[in-house]
């Protein structure tokens, strides 16, 4: 054999050694251990590796979360119409984007957006993916920029922690993932595809109902609300706001709780006194931060 051919032959021998490294570098190391016969068996029975590996909310992609969030937002904005006000829209969007930088998830698929909605209720809604809606009633109840920052930070926390998505019942998600996996494996003519889209839409619709129910009727769990409060304190502090704003707002809520009946904040959130206790316990560990004259003036300029 010529020397050059010996070199080529020897290099080829190296390939099996390098392939595992190559796969590992792409984060696909585990694929080396895939049982291809089992995989083919799964395909034959109409499942797929994608189905078996997608189990919960964290397996939804950012793009899927975005589409879920759009539909949740559309349902909310039907019942709580947008309140057009360009100056306040700029104000809350700039503040919200500033605060989101300090969250665990500054970027979502299509980004955060903040909207005032026309309702007397004291309420706020955080749709999966980052559309956040604040009611006129809530906005008017605030008395400082620190308090507004606390509200926006609390809602950003619900998004970054995916509390809304966690409202989707596990059964719906399992059904969706199974259908999605089966869809990939069927040969689809138009009729077949249409039936599959309709079925997936039905599951989607149920999932949207799950989330809207949580946001508008039942509220998040107590632990999710307390978690969002703690995250809001951290966001506000790191952003340079006084985290005291959240405590002040909760104190206002506590005083007003006897006056508002029915829906809104009081129906969908744990008792303000309960939340205030937890918030104050954290604030005691931090030194106080003075008010800022420019922020006070700016807030007054943007009152409704």
């Amino acid at each position, binding site marked *: 054999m010529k020397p050059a051919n010996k070199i080529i032959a020897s290099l080829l021998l190296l390939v099996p050694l390098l392939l595992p490294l190559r796969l590992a570098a792409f984060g696909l190391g585990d694929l080396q251990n895939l049982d291809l016969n089992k995989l083919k068996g799964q395909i034959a029975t109409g499942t797929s590796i994608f189905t078996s590996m997608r189990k919960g909310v964290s397996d939804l992609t950012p793009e899927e979360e975005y589409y879920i969030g759009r539909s949740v937002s559309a349902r909310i904005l039907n019942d709580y119409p947008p309140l057009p006000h360009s100056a306040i829209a700029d104000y809350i969007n700039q503040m919200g984007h500033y605060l989101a930088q300090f969250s665990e998830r500054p*970027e*979502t698929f299509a980004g955060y957006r903040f909207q005032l909605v026309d309702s007397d209720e004291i309420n706020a809604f955080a749709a999966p993916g980052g559309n956040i809606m604040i009611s006129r009633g809530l906005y008017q109840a605030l008395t400082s920029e620190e308090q507004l920052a606390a509200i926006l930070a609390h809602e950003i926390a619900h998004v970054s922690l995916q509390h809304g998505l966690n409202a989707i019942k596990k059964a719906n998600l399992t059904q969706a993932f199974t259908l999605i996996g089966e869809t990939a494996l069927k040969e689809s003519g138009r009729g077949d595809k249409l039936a599959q889209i309709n079925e997936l839409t039905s599951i989607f619709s149920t*999932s949207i109902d799950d989330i809207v129910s949580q946001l508008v009727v039942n509220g998040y769990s107590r632990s999710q609300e307390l978690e969002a409060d703690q995250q809001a304190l951290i966001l506000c502090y790191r952003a340079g706001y006084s985290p005291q704003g959240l405590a002040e707002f909760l104190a206002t809520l506590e005083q007003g709780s006897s006056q508002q009946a029915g829906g809104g904040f009081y129906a969908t959130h744990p008792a303000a006194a309960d939340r205030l206790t937890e918030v104050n316990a954290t604030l005691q560990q931090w030194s106080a931060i003075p008010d800022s004259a420019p922020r006070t003036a700016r807030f007054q300029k943007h009152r409704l």
Partner: protein
Amino acid sequence: MWLPLLRLFTLIALLTSLTVATADEIVVTVKETALRRDKQFFAPAIKVVKFTEKLELIESSAGWLHVRHQNDQGWIHSSAASAPKEGSLLDAITLGDKKGGGFSEDEVALAGKGFNAEVEKTYRSKTPKANFNAVDALEKVHTNPADVAKFAAAGELIPRPLP
């Protein structure tokens, strides 16, 4: 005669393994994001990278990723990209690219695309009590990072670490 050849192969194997070990590929997971000159949201943008575009990870620091995209280098936040997780859509796309994975690219694309624009369109047609026009209008709102920087400065907002 074989000793020089052995040295050459060892060198090739070593260089190749080093190259492979550091060539971490990640994928953009948001609609679009800016590749920035520095690791902060107010840093000037070099270019925009889009959903599913592949980036080469150079290093990570404080939640930011230093990446290479074609001939450019810059920073993106870690929430805008990730390495494909096993069984994820992005992993499926990567798997689908490889011959012998058993799936066509169309199948992979459909398998990963669960709740998508097509499903929303059907949902929208069946759900009269959903104001998608308001959502579309909301999505037209764009907040300029330069305005956010001015907002922070005007409000005397200075970032600080937790105590």
